[in-house]
């Protein structure tokens, strides 16, 4: 025996030994507990009465724990009794049924059964008084149904735990195959003072309750079934014993002690088992259901009735006619007050007249006071107490805690309520948590015995709320950080991919231009390797984020999984590329670094600073919205700034070191690229068309705009197609891909394919330039469109992320796709620009830079002359003026010529617009 149990004050085993004598099992005790005055005879002396059919029923969409139901009727619909009016909206949810026939008059926010007096969405039903039933299907032979079907019946009937929390019953009876239930416990303890709903139910309808329990037995297949009843209900015990006489159901009489009706406490009393902190009873092989729930299941199976009414105790000395009433769900408290004989003058919709005192929904220990008599009865409302101030007076003022420890003596969870109080009051929530604050069941025993009237439970609720909020904020910050990391990884990966691709293309084009000069592999191994590494590290980061999300039960898990899969695929392909490159380049000389370091650095600088800008923006937004992530985002932004600065420095150095390096002019295969462009354009067109159609179906406002855009895209696609046709006709040889022979066989001067492939590029003609200019123009448009779409989509994604939309994965995929498209267009454009520049050099003998420089120089020379001339005029030096005037004319002429040459060259190569 545990030594500690010796230290506990002894409590009488039972006040009614003869009753408990019927027990065949040894009962266990739980620590603490209190014996408040019962006040049960106030309401348990009369039979259950049918409740009124009020003019209006107000049915909250969240009568249960879990997601609110979704209305499936509309205002103005006529509904029948028992007809479903709201659907379950998720796995943890329960439908709502019409408690009587009538017309749906509103679906709006009304005061509901919330401790804080909140309003929530309710279906308001104007009853017609006819009480016409919808057709019902009873299932008396439910034993023949598969269990899953029976579970579904219970779910569809909207049955939720009728004892306290209102947890959807279908979930509790839907066990996994691996779960073995040792005890099915029916909680008929009803330990709170005043409440007698279960008492009367068992006295009058014991057979039905037992039938419901048998259905539960069929569902959970327990080894034994126990019904726990407190020994203050001798009539109920007798009735239940009689009803259970020929079954394997055991009626167990438990000593009257509050809170022995608490789920965990009852399990301990009946079985001696303790449920792990934060765990569920099913983990120790126990399932608990309430008597009222068993009765509701019985009504469903024997009559086909969904849950539309419940037995509610009307009690408190303000009722002249107290007792138990079978109340239609949605009946407002004021209708029950009138029904029970509390005088309520009828002066206006929400007025409550002269009644003063406390109006409590639930019991006096754990119920909550309502301040609005329009609050409706819901599935969990077991009691309405109307108590004048003489009965339940205003709480006395709080006195200092004298550490008497009475609270610790009565705590059923064996906490130190006093310590919890000090820490909660001081705001030391971590300490309070260390003292197991979260295990408090808020039974109120501590506050009941406190000689200083300290509202202890209120302090605990406050501290629990603060702790929950802390946890939520922490989780939010973690999620934001994971998202940010994933995003950075993605950006890095995309950059690496892009670099690798560009390198590959550059190498390929170099090979095409000079087939005989090199046997170098077409790809830069280092870049490929880097890309592969980055891709796999991005994948790993994504997997980490996914795991974290799954652990926290985050809604983003799906999106993250999709992203992780995509990254995996990318990492695999990057690895494959490295392998391929190794295989093909095994016999060749090491890779020639193909990229221009300065250009790369420039790009890196641009990317880094744009990342920095984005981060700053995000941080600002976070700060504006007062988000907790602001600080971390700001820190990230600073890091990025540092990186950008570093890169800038590196760029400056690189420029100084390598001023003469110019990139090798790349040469792309125009036909292949055109094909690609055509494909993209037409796919763009198709998706735009689809969007437009969808928008038109939805009568969206932007349908016309979408349609216009689709048309535009169509035109572009057509144009590109035409260009492709032209290009094919003009340059059939360019269709040939890079000959594989050039990769593996030693190149010879007479390798025909290579010569053919490079010929058109080498001998640039006016016709080529014109075609290129046209294509460049088209590509530029394509790039602008794609990049605009990408930016729009990114903004939309960001909005969606902030608002926590469901389709983030889809949106993310869209953003990625558009980004890719934009990048592709830009790259093609850059290639063409490079090509054009090369052609220009060939045509004019100097490159664009030189030309620009010449033009600028001559222009500045002219300006100098103008300035000198002005100075000479001021000085009045006639001879000088004449000389200068001549020189200025010459300089102006030169500048004009240089500008013309530049313009011509640019126009020739179609670079004007780029």
């Amino acid at each position, binding site marked *: 025996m545990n030594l*500690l149990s010796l*230290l506990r004050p002894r409590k009488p085993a039972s006040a009614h030994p003869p009753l408990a004598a019927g027990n065949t099992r040894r009962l266990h005790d739980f620590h603490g507990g209190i014996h408040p005055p019962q006040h049960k005879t106030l309401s348990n002396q009369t039979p259950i009465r049918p409740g009124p059919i009020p003019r209006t029923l107000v049915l909250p969409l969240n009568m249960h724990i879990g997601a609110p139901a979704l209305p499936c009727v509309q205002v103005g619909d006529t509904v029948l009794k028992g007809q479903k009016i709201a659907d379950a909206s998720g796995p943890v949810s329960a439908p709502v049924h019409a408690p009587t026939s009538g017309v749906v008059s509103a679906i709006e926010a009304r005061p509901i059964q919330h401790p804080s007096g909140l309003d929530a969405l309710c279906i308001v039903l104007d009853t017609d008084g006819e009480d016409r039933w919808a057709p019902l299907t009873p299932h008396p032979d439910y034993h023949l149904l598969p269990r899953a079907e029976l579970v579904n019946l219970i779910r569809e009937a909207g049955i939720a735990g009728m004892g306290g929390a209102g947890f959807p019953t279908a979930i509790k009876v839907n066990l996994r195959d691996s779960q073995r239930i040792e005890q099915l416990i029916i909680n008929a303890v009803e330990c709170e003072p005043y409440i007698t709903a279960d008492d009367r139910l068992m006295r009058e309808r014991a057979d039905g309750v037992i039938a419901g329990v048998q259905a539960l037995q069929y569902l959970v297949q327990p080894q034994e079934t126990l019904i726990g009843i407190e020994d203050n209900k001798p009539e109920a015990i007798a009735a239940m014993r009689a009803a259970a006489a020929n079954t394997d159901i055991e009626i167990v009489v438990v000593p009257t002690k509050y809170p022995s009706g608490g789920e965990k406490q009852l399990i*301990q009393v009946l079985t001696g088992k303790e449920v792990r902190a934060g765990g569920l009873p099913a983990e120790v092989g126990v399932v608990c259901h309430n008597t009222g729930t068993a009765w509701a299941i019985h009504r469903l199976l024997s009559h086909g009735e969904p849950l539309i009414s419940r037995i509610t105790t009307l009690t408190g000395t303000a009722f002249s006619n107290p007792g138990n009433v079978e109340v239609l769900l949605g009946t407002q408290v004021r209708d029950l007050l009138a029904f029970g004989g509390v005088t309520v003058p009828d002066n206006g919709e929400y007025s409550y007249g002269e009644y003063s005192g406390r109006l409590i929904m639930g019991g006096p220990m754990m*119920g909550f006071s309502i301040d609005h008599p329009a609050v409706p009865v819901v599935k969990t409302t077991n009691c309405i107490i109307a*108590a004048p101030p003489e009965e339940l007076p205003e709480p006395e003022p709080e006195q200092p805690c004298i550490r008497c420890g009475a609270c*610790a003596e009565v705590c059923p969870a064996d906490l*130190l309520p006093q310590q919890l109080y000090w820490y909660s009051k001081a705001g030391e929530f971590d300490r309070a948590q260390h003292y197991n604050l979260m295990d408090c069941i808020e039974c*109120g025993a501590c506050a009941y*015995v*406190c000689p200083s009237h300290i509202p202890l439970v209120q302090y605990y609720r406050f501290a629990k709320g603060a702790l929950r909020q802390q946890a939520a904020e922490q989780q939010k910050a973690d999620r934001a950080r994971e998202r940010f990391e994933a995003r950075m990884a993605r950006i890095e990966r995309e950059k690496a991919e892009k670099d690798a691709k560009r390198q590959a293309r550059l190498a390929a084009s170099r090979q095409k231009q000079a087939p005989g000069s090199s046997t170098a592999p077409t790809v830069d191994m280092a870049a490929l390797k880097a890309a592969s590494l980055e891709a796999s590290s991005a994948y790993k980061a994504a997997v980490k984020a996914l795991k974290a999300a799954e652990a926290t039960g985050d809604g983003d898990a799906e999106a993250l999984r999709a992203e992780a899969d995509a990254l995996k695929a990318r990492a695999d392909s990057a690895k494959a590329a490295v392998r391929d490159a190794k295989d093909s380049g095994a016999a060749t000389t090491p890779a020639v670094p193909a990229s221009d370091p300065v250009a790369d650095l420039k790009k890196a600088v641009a990317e880094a600073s744009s990342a920095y800008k984005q981060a700053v923006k995000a941080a600002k937004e976070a700060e504006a919205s007062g988000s907790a992530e602001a600080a971390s985002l700001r820190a990230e932004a600073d890091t990025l700034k540092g990186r950008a600065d570093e890169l800038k420095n590196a760029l400056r150095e690189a420029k100084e070191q390598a001023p003469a390096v110019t990139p090798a002019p790349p040469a792309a295969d125009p036909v292949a690229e055109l094909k690609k462009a055509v494909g993209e354009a037409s796919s763009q067109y198709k998706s735009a068309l689809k969007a437009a159609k969808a928008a038109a179906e939805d009568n969206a406002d932007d349908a016309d705009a979408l349609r216009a855009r689709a048309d535009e895209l169509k035109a572009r696609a057509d144009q590109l197609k035409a260009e492709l046709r032209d290009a094919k006709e003009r340059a059939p040889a360019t269709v040939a891909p890079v000959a594989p022979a050039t990769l593996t066989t030693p190149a010879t001067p007479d390798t025909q394919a290579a010569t053919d492939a490079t010929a058109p590029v080498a001998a640039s003609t006016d016709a080529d330039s014109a075609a290129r200019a046209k294509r460049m123009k088209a590509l530029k448009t394509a790039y602008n469109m794609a990049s605009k779409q990408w930016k729009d989509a990114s903004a939309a994604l960001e909005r969606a992320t902030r608002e926590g939309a469901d389709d983030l994965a889809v949106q993310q995929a869209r953003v990625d796709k558009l980004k890719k498209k934009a990048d592709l267009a830009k790259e093609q454009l850059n290639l063409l620009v490079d090509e054009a520049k090369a052609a220009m050099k060939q045509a004019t003998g100097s490159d664009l830079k030189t030309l620009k420089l010449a033009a600028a120089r001559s222009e500045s020379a002219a300006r100098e002359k103008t300035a000198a001339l002005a100075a000479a005029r001021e000085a009045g030096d006639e001879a000088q003026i004449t000389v200068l005037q001549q020189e200025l004319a010459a300089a102006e002429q030169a500048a004009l010529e240089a500008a013309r040459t530049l313009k011509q060259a640019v126009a020739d190569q179609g670079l004007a617009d780029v």
Partner: protein
Amino acid sequence: MALIKVTSPHATGQQRTGRLMREVMLATLPGLAVLTWLFGWGSLINVIWAMLIALASEAAVLKARGKDVAFYLRDNSALVTAVLLALAIPPSAPWWLTLIGVSFSIVVAKQLYGGLGMNPFNPAMAGYVLLLISFPIEMTRWFAPGEGPEHFMGSVHLFLGRYAETVDLMTGATPLDSFRTWAGDATALANEHILHGVFAGVGWEWVNVAFLLGGLYLLWRGIITWHIPAGFLGALALCALPFWLYDPARFASPLFHLFSGAAMFGAFFIATDPVSAATSRWGRLIYAALIGVLIWVIRSLGGYPDAVAFAVLLLNLAAPTIDYYTQPRTYGHDKAKRGTG
């Protein structure tokens, strides 16, 4: 709308701090009666005088602190402190001794630490120790049982400090003093009349029986739990037993220890002060047992005849630490938590 909007629980028990304190005072009545019977009216006068001082000084401090004087006075805690201290002071004490002790208890030991519920030390014992150290003669001047002033006026003279007018009174050693003086000398011990009452020291055994009765009343009323008296008395007896068996001439018997000096008073009324004691079940046992051990050590080996005040004050300081390490195992947890984490 006249609805009262409060959170659960709506039902509250009947216990009130003021009532609780009143019951504690009520439970001291048997002890007070026996003290008066044995030593004259001095104890009663002291108690009433101390209550007046306590009310006045508590009210003055509350007013200075800007608190609701009437509301806080109603908790009766100042009166309890006054009664406990007055019962501990010898009946021959002059008025100023009580005044200094009680006002120190209330103003310094209680209110300066933040008032009811915040004081680390038992206020009555803090005041007692202050007096014992500052005024050792007045604080140890007990009459031989039954030899106190016969008339009420004699006690009044003493109270007014006119000790010289009552010199014919027999002052004498208490049983603890006496045993301490003659410990080791079996013959002398046998000749000491005061050591041989019905079952413990003459007179003082009945004082302790009276406080035991009062303590049982508190237990019955559920105002204290059994942990502290049991730990206190059990440890004291357990310490005394082996030494007494080893050498009865040098070490007093467990029964003598339990019914001498302030043992019962301390076990049921002093160590049980909830504010300054440990609060968890195991904590209370350990706290009280350590007090019992300390009392035996100081009585048998230390320099003072009795030691309840010192032992209680020392353990008051240890109470928070004891509580940290004696948290109960919460439902649903494998192990009890230790320390503050």
